[in-house]
């Protein structure tokens, strides 16, 4: 998996600002070599990926020098650009995509979220053997869906060094979503370090990139504001458990420069519109390891698609998404310029761009939000919420007992807990009401089919009791209406999973599941190891599913980080804790101490990958194979 990047180093002393903001004109350095010109249809302006369309497409993977921060590095690119060319294809077409590898090592391309024969899925070692150096692999498949997707390398850390592009499939019947303008906003992250070196540094010291750690003077400040005992109590649980309350992202802006359409914050990507136009923004999180919180101050974002699938429109101020997820949003700008602001989940940096009437305009840029400590709810689920949240009755008693022990709970933790309860506010009660309506229905059925609703009984795997797992959650909560740490109570309307509802017709399989699988997302931050059920990929066995069966998969997050879980080859159809189908996704973010469930119907035979799309978590072993037979 190791990819050694040639170290074309120009030894430059970088200011911190330049490192985080990048170069204004940062990006791909070399003009595409002559042999590539034919493959590129349009020019490679900064931040404008070339667009390729049609039924036959040629892609060439090669090393290309880039300079985002003042230091020249080698990137792996497709057709010489970062992002890779935007592919505009049409639903129903059979496409032929020839991928030529001009790297000295093997490569691959995975079509993220696309249903296709498993041999075309592009995961070396699972779908095929990969594309050896100098060879061309021909992908051939028929597009059975439409919407916004993306594609990327599934070999080593090539995705992290530049191999990602937008994949847009136009609906056969014409666009249902009407907009005057269509812009791709692709977010990513870039590091000048060799990714394997960055990974090995995390292996040595897992908080090596975290510069928001609790300090002594924060403690003395808390002592003066809340008193010694409360200040100690605020820290007690974290310190006892050896958990870091600011462990929000493994790789921060200490090494990452965040990009919007391949453009650094200093470069300020411009999306140009005409006055009065409505714009469809296709947001793609193509980053390797970064969750982004995206907003456009002054504009409501009407989310109309999630992971390429139409959802009932919902107007929000902000949304969070992790690597692999996509959201389409409509905006109707009235002013001359707006900032698109995407801060990283750990608040160490941001990607930004500007929607403007003409090049060169800019709008005020908001400040980064303060870093929030994870709350007890993030660590312990319902228990952290004082046993008061929306969990099963069978847990209420335990939750009550847990309350007694919550004396040790800090006031800030409480604020967090209360925050997470009150933030839901309206949404939560709506959700509750919905659940109640539903509960009559499902309670009648429950006696007939226990699989009508997802089970709430936590079952840890026996392999979760070893050195690979640093914590287990006994009382998780589903809380689909929780926007997550750093977004609760921020005064803005933030999209949550509970807001997403596929429009009629998107979810077409309404059979109840015939079986239920429970898997836990696990890890050990100190050792920097990530896994399912405490078993890293190399020790795991595949999950076996039968073609056409309706299956429920429960994912419980026994870690303190949010994991965007991407299942290849089939949809992940998210349901509520009452078993009500909500939204079809290909990548589902699972928050700390959260227990969510989705249904799937595998149609395509073969072996498929299933993994956390934080690239380092995937590579550390939070990866399973799924066999459909």
């Amino acid at each position: 998996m190791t990819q050694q990047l040639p170290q074309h180093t120009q030894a430059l002393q970088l200011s911190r600002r330049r490192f985080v903001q990048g170069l204004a004109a940062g990006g791909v350095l070399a003009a595409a070599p002559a042999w590539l010109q034919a493959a590129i249809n349009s020019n490679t302006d900064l931040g404008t990926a070339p667009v390729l369309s049609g039924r036959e497409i040629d892609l060439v993977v090669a090393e290309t020098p880039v300079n985002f921060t003042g230091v020249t590095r080698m990137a792996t690119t497709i057709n010489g650009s970062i992002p890779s060319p935007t592919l505009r294809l049409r639903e129903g077409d059979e496409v032929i995509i020839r991928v030529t590898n001009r790297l000295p090592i093997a490569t691959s391309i995975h079509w993220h979220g696309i249903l296709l024969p498993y041999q075309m899925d592009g995961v070396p070692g699972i779908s095929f053997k990969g594309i050896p150096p100098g060879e061309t692999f021909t992908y051939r498949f028929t597009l059975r869906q439409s919407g916004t997707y993306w594609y990327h390398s599934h070999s080593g850390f090539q995705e992290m060094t530049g191999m990602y592009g937008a994949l847009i499939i136009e609906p056969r019947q014409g666009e249902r979503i009407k907009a005057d303008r269509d812009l791709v906003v692709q977010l990513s992250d870039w590091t000048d370090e060799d990714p394997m070196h960055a990974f090995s540094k995390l292996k040595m010291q897992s908080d090596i990139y975290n510069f928001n750690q609790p300090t002594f003077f924060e403690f003395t400040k808390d002592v003066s504001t809340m008193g010694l005992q409360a200040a100690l109590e605020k820290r007690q649980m974290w310190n006892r458990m050896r958990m870091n309350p600011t462990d929000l992202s493994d790789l921060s802006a200490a090494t990452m420069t965040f990009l919007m359409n391949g453009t650094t914050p200093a470069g300020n990507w411009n999306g140009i519109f005409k006055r009065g136009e409505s714009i469809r923004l296709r947001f793609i999180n193509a980053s390797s390891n970064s969750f982004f919180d995206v907003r456009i101050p002054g504009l409501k974002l009407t989310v109309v698609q999630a992971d390429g699938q139409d959802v009932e429109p919902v107007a929000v101020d902000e949304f969070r998404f992790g690597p692999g997820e996509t959201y389409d949003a409509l905006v109707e700008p009235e002013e001359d310029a707006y900032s698109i602001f995407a801060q990283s989940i750990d608040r160490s940096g941001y990607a930004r761009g500007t929607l403007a009437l003409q090049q060169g305009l800019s709008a005020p840029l908001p400040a980064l939000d303060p870093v929030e400590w994870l709350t007890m709810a993030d660590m312990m689920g319902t228990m952290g919420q004082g046993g008061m949240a929306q969990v099963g009755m069978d847990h209420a008693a335990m939750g009550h007992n847990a309350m007694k022990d919550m004396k040790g709970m800090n006031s800030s933790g409480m604020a967090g807990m209360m925050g997470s309860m009150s933030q839901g506010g309206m949404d939560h009660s709506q959700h509750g009401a919905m659940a109640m309506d539903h509960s009559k229905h499902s309670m009648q059925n429950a006696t007939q089919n226990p699989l009508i609703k997802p089970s709430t009984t936590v079952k840890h795997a026996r392999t979760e009791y070893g050195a690979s797992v640093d914590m287990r959650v006994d009382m998780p909560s589903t809380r689909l209406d929780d926007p997550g740490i750093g977004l609760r109570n921020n005064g803005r309307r933030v999209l949550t999973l509970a807001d997403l509802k596929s429009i009629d017709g998107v979810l077409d399989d309404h059979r109840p599941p015939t079986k239920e699988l429970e898997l836990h997302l696990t890890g050990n931050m100190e050792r920097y190891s990530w896994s399912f059920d405490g078993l890293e990929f190399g020790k795991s066995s595949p999950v076996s599913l039968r073609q056409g069966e309706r299956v429920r998969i429960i994912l419980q997050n026994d870690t303190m980080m949010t994991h965007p879980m991407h299942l290849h080859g089939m949809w992940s159809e998210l349901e509520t804790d009452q078993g009500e189908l909500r939204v079809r996704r290909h990548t589902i973010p699972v928050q700390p101490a959260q227990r969510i469930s989705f249904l799937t119907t595998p149609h395509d035979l073969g072996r498929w990958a299933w993994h956390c799309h934080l690239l380092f978590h995937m590579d550390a072993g939070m990866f399973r194979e799924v066999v459909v037979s």
Partner: protein
Amino acid sequence: MKTKHMQQLISSVLAVSVFHAPVLLAEMDSKPMSHEMGQMQGGSAPDNARDPHAYSDGYTLTEGPYAQSGPRQLKLADEHAFWAVLGDRLEYYEDSDSGIFDLQAWYGTTYDRFVVKAEGDFDDKRLEESQTDLLWGHALSAYFDVQLGLRLDQYDEGRDRQWLALGIQGLAPYWFELDITAYVGDSGRTALTVEAEYELLLSQKLILQPRSEFTLYGKEDLKNGLGSGFSDFSLGLRLRYEFTRQFAPYLGVEWFETYDDTANYRQAAGQDRSDTQLVAGLKFLF
């Protein structure tokens, strides 16, 4: 003499008990936070714990329908070996124009590692004495490794010694870095070293590190000037500035005290039985 016997007894008991320390610490590690709250860390799996292979229908990564032919191609970082060199202390004592080094290196996977610990004193650019542990480290729990191997002592003036080593190293609750090792040498020699470190972040880059270490010997070693029982204790406070997380110079103060026969031997050799010194040094990681 009576106290000496007492010390021998105490150190023997300690030396023996440290062999149980892995078990004790693992237990401490896994103690429930409270009865009501269940157990979020460590512990052992209940009988009805879920089988992590229950969904496989007997298929494996290389066998079953649609498996790629040949040996398994996809190997992730969990099957890779990594390495690290941690220079904990590389420091110079101005008063005595001498210095010490304290390095640790490892090579291996997440759960099994070859570990080298090297510690020594130099004076006038000459190695006075050193202690090198060559260990196999195996993960015992989420936060602790058990380490088994050899220790090689080298003395410029004295006699070199070899020991069998068994210890534990890891992160205890409340963020204490612990390294406890028991040693058994020839002629019934035993020893026990205990090291503890803590990091206090004054800022993201300015870090105060208290550090303590003590050594016990089960048997006196005249050749090397070591008495039996509680031999030495040191306490240091180092303030480092992390220019990067991998490169951090520091200033500090180190106090040490020797006890009983060890102290007497030192005095006889014209050395101080205790001392407080200012130190300057470097901590690094690569």
